[in-house]
């Protein structure tokens, strides 16, 4: 496929936004469970939510560039029964709404205790209502975004649970890394540690799942072939003319137009940028809670994700390409 930057930014930005929100949510949950000391600065969750929202907005704006007719974008919510894209279009603003509610509750202190446990833990509205609905929405959104790609069964590189798992884990990992960097600006070492440790765990986890998907994709046997594409049984078939020489939508949308070597180097770049460097920076930041290191970890990881997503598109081999061998 031809990687579209609008879609690359959409998926990476909203992923990080969702991840950041999940990080905030879990931090709040930990504190309310007394597993973490509570955050002294009450703006933390509000501002954090704003960041998450900004990331989601950024994604949304990027996605608009992908549309031929953004003014009609509202229509895209109508087919949620069948279309994962439509579902995403619903889930995304819903997610954003929940983040907004969550953030507003924190920022304006509109919170209250909904339930106090016997052990003396106080659970707030923001956590149990806005936060948990938001968290569920985040997972739904991950599934929707992932399924947009995973449901196209003949894009075999995409049609796997890994697509959803990786989307979710990449988003969460980058969100936690961002949360670590963000929290380091506050006087909350424990919380920063919490985010950092989880960021490392999630990054390692997604390294495993991404490696697994790379391994899987390297061994894909494509079901379609020249033979099935034109219905001729002969081992030697070569296209000699595509029917047009100046190219068409089909030669632009589905080909990355880059060399194999380029593709390979993108893979190595993202493997380095997304995993080891952030992990090292995070580990280094673990003790020092040095904002510089943690911000760097996020920036590097996010940059890596752009490469990762580029590669995700470029690696996918659309069967239509059998008909358009750019001859």
């Amino acid at each position, binding site marked *: 496929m031809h990687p579209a930057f609008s879609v690359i930014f959409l998926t990476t930005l909203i992923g990080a936004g969702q991840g950041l929100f999940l990080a905030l949510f879990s931090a709040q949950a930990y504190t309310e469970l007394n597993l973490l000391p509570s955050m002294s600065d009450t703006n933390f969750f509000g501002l954090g939510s704003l960041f998450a929202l900004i990331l989601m907005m950024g994604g949304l704006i990027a996605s608009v560039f992908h549309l031929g007719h953004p003014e009609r974008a509202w229509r895209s919510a109508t087919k949620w029964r069948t279309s994962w894209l439509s579902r995403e279009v619903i889930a995304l603003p819903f997610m954003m709404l929940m983040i907004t509610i969550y953030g507003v509750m924190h920022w304006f202190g509109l919170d209250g205790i909904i339930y106090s446990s016997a052990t003396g833990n106080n659970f707030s509205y923001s956590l149990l209502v806005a936060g948990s609905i938001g968290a569920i929405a985040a997972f739904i959104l991950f599934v929707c975004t992932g399924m947009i790609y995973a449901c196209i069964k003949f894009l075999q590189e995409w049609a796997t649970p890994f697509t959803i798992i990786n989307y979710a884990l990449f988003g969460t990992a980058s969100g936690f890394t961002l949360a670590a960097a963000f929290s380091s600006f506050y006087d909350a070492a424990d919380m920063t540690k919490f985010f950092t440790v989880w960021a490392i765990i999630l990054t390692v986890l997604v390294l495993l799942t991404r490696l697994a998907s790379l391994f899987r994709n390297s061994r894909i046997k494509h079901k379609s072939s020249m033979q099935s594409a034109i219905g001729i049984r002969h081992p*030697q078939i*070569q296209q*000699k003319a595509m*029917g*047009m*020489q*100046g190219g068409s939508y089909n030669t632009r949308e589905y080909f990355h137009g880059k060399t194999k070597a380029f593709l390979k180097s993108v893979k190595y770049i993202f493997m380095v940028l997304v995993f080891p460097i952030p992990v090292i920076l995070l580990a280094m930041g673990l003790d020092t809670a040095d904002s510089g290191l943690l911000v760097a970890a996020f920036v590097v990881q996010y940059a890596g994700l752009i490469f990762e997503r580029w590669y995700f598109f470029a690696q996918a081999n659309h069967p239509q390409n059998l008909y358009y061998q750019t*001859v």
Partner: protein
Amino acid sequence: MNTTTANAGDGRTEVKNTTCYMCACRCGIRVTLRDNEVRYIQGNPDHPLNKGVICAKGASGIMKQYSPARLTKPLMRKEGAERGAGDFEEISWDKAFDVMEERLRHLRGTDPKKFALFTGRDQMQALTGMFAKQFGTPNYAAHGGFCSVNMATGMIYTIGGSFWEFGGPDLERSRLFIMIGTAEDHHSNPMKIALSKFKRNGGRFISVNPVRTGYSAIADEWVPIKPGTDGALLLAITNVLIAQGLYDREFLVQYTNAAELVNQDPDSDEFGMFIRNKELEVGEGCFDPENKLWWDRNENKPVITHTKGADPFLLGSYTLENGTAVKSSMQLLKERVEEYTPEWAAAITGIPAETITRLAHEMGIVARDEKIELPIAWTDVWGNDHDTVTGNPVSFHAMRGLAAHSNGFQTIRSLSIVMTLLGTIDRPGGFRHKAPFPRPIPPCAKPPNSPDDVKPNTPLNGMPLGWPASPDDLFVDENNEPVRIDKAFSWEFPLSAHGLMHNAITNAWRGDPYKIDTLMIFMANMAWNSSMNTSEVRKMLNDKEENGEFKIPFLIVCDAFQSETVAFADLVLPDTTYLERHDVMSMLDRPISEFEGPVDSVRIPVVPPKGDCKPFQEVIIELGSRLGLPAFTNKDGSRKYRDYPDFVVNFETAPGSGIGFLSGWRGKGGEKFMKGEPNPSQWEMYEKNDCVYHHHLPKSYQYMRNWNKGYLTWAQDHSLTRYAEPINVHIYSEVLQQFRLAAEGKRKGKQPPEHLRERVREHFDPLPFYSETLESQLTDKHKYPLNALTQRPMAMYHSWDSQNAWLRQIHTHNYMHIHPSTAQAQGIEDGGWMWAESMHGKVRCLARYSEAVEPGTIWTWNSIGKASGAWNLDKSANESNKGFLLNHLISEELPKNECGEHVSNSDPITGQAGWYDVRVRVYKAEDDEPKETFPTFDTLPLFPGMEKRRSIVRYFAGKFAKKGAK
């Protein structure tokens, strides 16, 4: 269905019929207009030719009509500008006519042959040829000489008809169809309609071609052959057919000269001529007199042919009473082909001997065992009644793969003879004629034959083109040197029935045989695709004498588009498109006849001319009137015809002849056909009838027309032909033998110049023979081991469709198609840059591997490559950067040899251009070379009056023009 744009049905819609001219096939089309813009062009379902279908080009007519490459103003080269630079200023038509009138009047009054008129892919030679004749110049020809004159002559001199527009395979009833050397051809849509029907009816389709594209793709069997060697294949097939007795004996005896006895006395001046019974009274005329002899089996003695009850031997050598040794034509043919065994041909053609033998057997067996008997009674010219028409359902079609070789004439004669041996001439399932064919062998029209036929202020004595029957018909002077600028009908190419347009510029430039003054080019891209040696020809057009005058002093080009050639003109005449003018596909020219009878057709404008465009026909009528040419003026010198439509209705070939350009609805009220007084409403009647007139002959006149008394009498009555005499097939060609006798000094009359004697003697063989193409004979084949060819792309017409925004998306540049083994031997990569080089030139081009080409051959689509800036294409256009023209490799003249220094690269019999003879070598283009084609040319500017090209086209009829360029 919801729409963002207006509905198709909105707007004011009109439907008009006319005839397509996106190519020379001339299908009937129905043009739907919306708000005066072309909404849709479809095939006319009621048209006999295309029956409603249309092709890629025809369906892209809109993009031609609204092309920004259209010329819209008469243009004059700016004082001092170089030719080819395209530096023009706009002038008025009045000025243009004044300039032409002055110049041409002077030439006509002094030396009319200094005016030359050459026309390209047009179909209005009836008018242009007549204009030339009226003007008095012999220097007129159309594209036929470089196109397929071998096909025309090879067959017409053998069977009295030809493929092409004048006949074809009857695929409706055929069982076995062999297509040789055809990629697309003129009969584009009808051939496709017929071919698919044929295949669906279970017919077997074999294609003989070095390349497998288009039609060949759907062949049941592809027989790859080395270019230029089909003669060997066909002669080997002849060998097998005769050796096995797989020929139609009765057909050969009755309808050909196979059993006629030929003088074999080497000492006789009549050697090689038919023995004639001199006492017999036979009429004089342009036909075969029936005074020749058979050797009768019953009486075992010679008899006059077609003697009732006689049954001649087909084979055998005999001695006449007076001691003259004689042999039958068939015996001579048999002896001729004895050495041409399948094994011999295999080595030459690259086709296994078993395949050749099998092909011959297949043909023979199908012809013999799948006979068709149609219950159609007819009477032959000898008065014999037949209850049925017999068909041997094997048919052939061939085109430029045979024609465009310098050995093509004899190859095509071989093919005609194979067809004849199988008994398939004008019979169901075989070859069938289309009116006005068959014609006598050769047809009666003769070219002028003396320099005295060209006189100031006098029409030419004869038509500029014709069909020589003997050396006396040659158009040479007292020194046996050519009179025409293209040397047609000279000893270099005696039977050049269509002229040699491909040598016109070179000869005029060199002043050989003389200098001319004004060259007028109509609808031909002679600075590009219709010239061999294109780069040099472009230089010649711009070359000057010592005194600064151009070597060809004045060049007039009439074109509808900004072609490469237009850039060289001194005066440019902007023509209309086919949707803007009246045209006639006339019986006097190349009608669109069908097997069932004559058909002619017209074009009627469906949209008004763009800008100041004027139909070339109107230019001719205007010039003819201004110059006072007899056919265009009344006795008192006043103008005779208002305009072309008026001319078409009222012109008669001779006063009162009743023969005019159109054959339908003649007579005062349109009650007559073929012949009759002018009918003032003729155009309306054509318009009402889908722009076509189709005359259906009675069934009994539709077959065996060479010998069909009913048909021949009908044709005579309707002035299609002068004689109702049989047209027997010339297995043995006495016409050719006469030229050979002259070359041998055994014949009085015109004599070949010494340097050409041997050439004429060798090639004017009365029986077909195989020889390598001239270029192959004169090339170092180790150095240039490959053949290079072009193919017609179905979705492009010659050079003229690159201005078409839709068609150019299909072919925007071309590749050199090459077999991987051939390419890899030279390190050439698939899709990589390579060189192809001949003795004459070289091109850098892109390679494309192909398994569908004989490994000794490379090929490309014809004329996709363009000169930069021509056709109003941007200089970045693929056509001029990646596309290339093969013509740069092909020379218009042979290397110096014993026949002379400047002998045309053409068939020595007919002057057919040897396009496909070129031999090349290939090698990889180095990595540091520019990644672009070679040669390239300076970018042409936009000419005055041309539209700026749009950066985007969003055609929507009824709204397009208003929106204008974006």
